[in-house]
C-alpha cells in the first residue's frame, strides 16, 4: 500500500467510525514513515471533518459522530508519544464539568467530544464538581472557555454561583463562560451573566469558536 493509499483508507476508517481499523492503519502509516502531524492533519482530522459534514447534511446522526470521534481519538492516542517536540495547534483550551450535586454528564460528554474533534483541547473535570475545583483548575490550566453543565432544576443555581466566585476571585475577564443543560435557556444565561449558551452540541462548537476568536 502506498502512503497515499494508507492515508485515504485511514480517512475512510474515521468516517466509518472503525476504531480498530484506525489503529491498524495509523500504525501502518507510521511504519511507512509518514510524519505523525501529517497523519493527524491529512487523514484523521480530514476524516472527522467529513463526518461533521455528513452530520450537517443530515446523513449522519449523533452515534456516527461519536464513533467517528472515538476512532479519530484512537489514532491520535497512538501518535501522541511520537509528537514530542512538535506541537499540535488547538483552537483553544476548554475546561468543562457538571456542577456540584449533579451526576448527569451525557450532554457535557457529547459537547466535549464535538469540541475535541473540532480542534479544541478539552479538559473534562467530570461530574459533581464544586465551584472551588473549577477555580483551582482555571488558575492552573488557564482555559479560554469553561463549560458548566447542569441538568437538575435544583442544581442549575450552581452555574450562577461559579460565575459569582469567578468575579470575586478577579478571574471573570480571563475566561469565557458557557453553560448548558436541558432546563437551561438563553434567558437564564443572560440573567447569570454567562457568555454563551447553546441548545445543542453543534451550536455549542460554533459559539465556542466565536468566543475564543473574540477573546
Amino acid at each position, binding site marked *: 500500500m502506498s502512503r497515499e493509499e494508507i492515508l485515504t483508507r485511514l480517512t475512510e476508517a474515521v468516517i466509518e467510525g472503525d476504531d480498530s481499523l484506525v489503529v491498524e492503519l495509523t500504525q501502518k502509516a507510521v511504519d511507512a514513515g509518514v510524519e505523525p502531524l501529517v497523519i493527524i492533519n491529512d487523514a484523521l482530522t480530514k476524516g472527522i471533518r467529513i463526518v461533521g459534514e455528513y452530520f450537517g447534511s*443530515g446523513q449522519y*446522526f*449523533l*452515534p456516527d459522530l461519536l464513533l467517528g470521534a472515538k476512532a479519530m481519538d484512537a489514532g491520535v492516542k497512538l501518535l501522541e508519544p511520537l509528537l514530542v517536540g512538535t506541537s499540535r495547534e488547538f483552537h483553544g483550551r476548554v475546561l468543562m464539568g457538571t456542577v456540584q*450535586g449533579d*451526576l*448527569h454528564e*451525557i*450532554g457535557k460528554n*457529547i459537547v466535549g467530544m464535538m469540541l475535541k474533534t473540532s480542534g479544541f483541547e478539552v479538559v473534562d473535570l467530570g461530574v459533581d464538581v464544586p465551584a472551588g475545583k473549577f477555580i483551582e483548575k482555571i488558575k492552573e490550566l488557564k482555559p479560554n472557555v469553561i463549560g458548566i453543565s447542569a441538568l*437538575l*432544576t*435544583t*442544581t*442549575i*443555581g450552581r452555574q450562577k454561583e461559579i460565575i459569582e466566585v469567578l468575579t470575586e476571585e478577579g478571574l471573570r475577564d480571563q475566561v469565557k463562560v458557557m453553560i448548558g443543560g*436541558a*432546563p437551561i*435557556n438563553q*434567558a*437564564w444565561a443572560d440573567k447569570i451573566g454567562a457568555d454563551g449558551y447553546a*441548545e*445543542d*452540541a453543534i451550536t455549542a462548537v460554533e459559539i465556542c469558536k466565536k468566543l475564543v476568536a473574540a477573546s
Partner: protein
Amino acid sequence: MKFELFSQEELLQIHQASVEILKRVGIHTTSERFKSLLLDHGCEEHGDRIVFTEDVIEKALKTVPPSFKLYGRNDSHVLEIGWKKAYCQTCVGTPSMMDLDTGEKRDATVKDLEEYTRLADALDYVNIISPIFPRDVPQEIILTIETATLLRNTSKPLSICVESARELPYILELLRLVAGGEEALREKPIATIPVSPLSPLEYGFDPAEALLDVVEAGLPLGVEPCPMMGSTGPMTLIGTVAQHNAEILAGVIAAQLLKPGAPLTMSSRATFMDMRSGVGLWAMPEMGLAGAAMNQLGRFYNIPVAPGGYCGASKTADAQSGYEHLYNALMESLVGSDIIGSAGSLDNALTSCYAMLVMDNEISSVVQRTIKGVEVNEEKLAVDVVAEVIESHGNFLAHKHTRKYLRAGELWVPPLGDRQTFEKWAFTGEKVEEKARRTAKELIATHQVLPLSPEVEAEFDKVIARARQIEMGE
C-alpha cells in the same frame, strides 16, 4: 380490561434479562448506608459494584405490598393504588411555564405554583398533584416552599419528588401538620415521595440516602430513574426496558430489605434521545410503548406502577400535544397503570402549561372511562328492549331503558371538547386550546380550595422560617 404487550414467555425472558443485569453488572453507589444495607442482606461486592443474588431478589420482591391507599387532606380523595385506575398526576419539576395571558414560555414562579395547583385542584380527572419548580424562591428551601404551597392550594394527594434527603425533614413536618401527626401520616399517607437515581444503574449518594429516609419515614416511595434509549440505555426499546426494570428493582429491593412491606411504586420514565439534537424525548410512540412494557412487568411482579405518560415533544398545547398525550397515556392505561404522570407538560416535560393541564384533564377522563371497560350482562345487552321498540314501531329515545342508562352515565360527556352543531360552534369558532385557556382562567378565578386551619397555617410559617434559618443561615 387488560391488554398485553408480551406473552408470558416473553415477559419471563425480559425478567431474566433484568435479573442477569442485577447479578452481573449490579449497581454502583457512594452511600455507605445503601451499600451496607445491600451487603448485609447477601448482595456481593464486585470491584466498585454491588451485585445481587437470586436469593436476595426473590426474598425482597415477596414483601412488596401489591396495593396501598393514598389520601387527600380531607376524606373526599381516597386513591386505591394497585387497582390499575390510571390516576392522573401533574408533571413534576418543570422550570418553565407557558404564560396564561401571552401564551409565551417563561420562568415558572411561585404565583404559577399557587394558581396551577389551584387549577389542578379544580379539575376532576387530575388526581395527584406534583410541584412545578418556581425560579423566584430561594433554591436552598425550594421543596419546603413547594410542599407548603401545594398543601395550601389543594386538598388532593401529592407527589413530591426529592433529589436529596436534605429538605425531607421539613417536607415531613409539613405533611404531618396536615395529617395530624407522624402516626396519622403513616396510616393515611397524603403524598408519595419519588426519588430518581441515575441511569444506567447508578445510585448516587443523594438519591440513595433519600430513598432510605423516605422508607424510614413510612411514606409511599416512587423509584424513578430516567434512562434515555441510545445514550444512557441500549438503542433497543426492550433493551432499555430490561435495564430500566433492573435499576428500578434495585431500589425496590433496597426499600424492602430496609423495611419489608414498605409501600412503593415502580415509577418508570424510559425516554429516548433524538439522534440529531441530543434532546431527551418524552414522545410517542416509544414513551407509551416502554411505559406499557414496564406496566406489564409491574403486573407480573404485583407491584404498583406509576409511569410518565401525559407528555410529548410538542411545544404548545396544540393538536400534536393532544395526540401525543392521548397515545402515551392510553397505551399505558390499557396494559394497566396505577398512576400516569407528567400531566400538563409540554416540550418533553420541561415546561408546564395551564391550557395543556385542562386538555389532559379531558384525556384523563376518557382514559379512565376506557379502562372501566364495557360491562356485559342481560340488561345491558338489552335484547328485550330491541324487541319492544320494534314491536311498538317506536324508537329508543322514548324508552325508559334509554333514560335509565343515560342517567347512569353510559354516554361519556367531554369536560372540554366541542360537540355542538356546526352553526353553534361557528358562532365563536373557538379551538380546543383556546377553550382550554379560557377554562383555566375561569377556574383559577373562581375555584375555592378547602382552606387549612389558621393553626396549621401558623405552624407552616414557623417550619418555613426554620428551614430558612438552618438552610440559608438567615
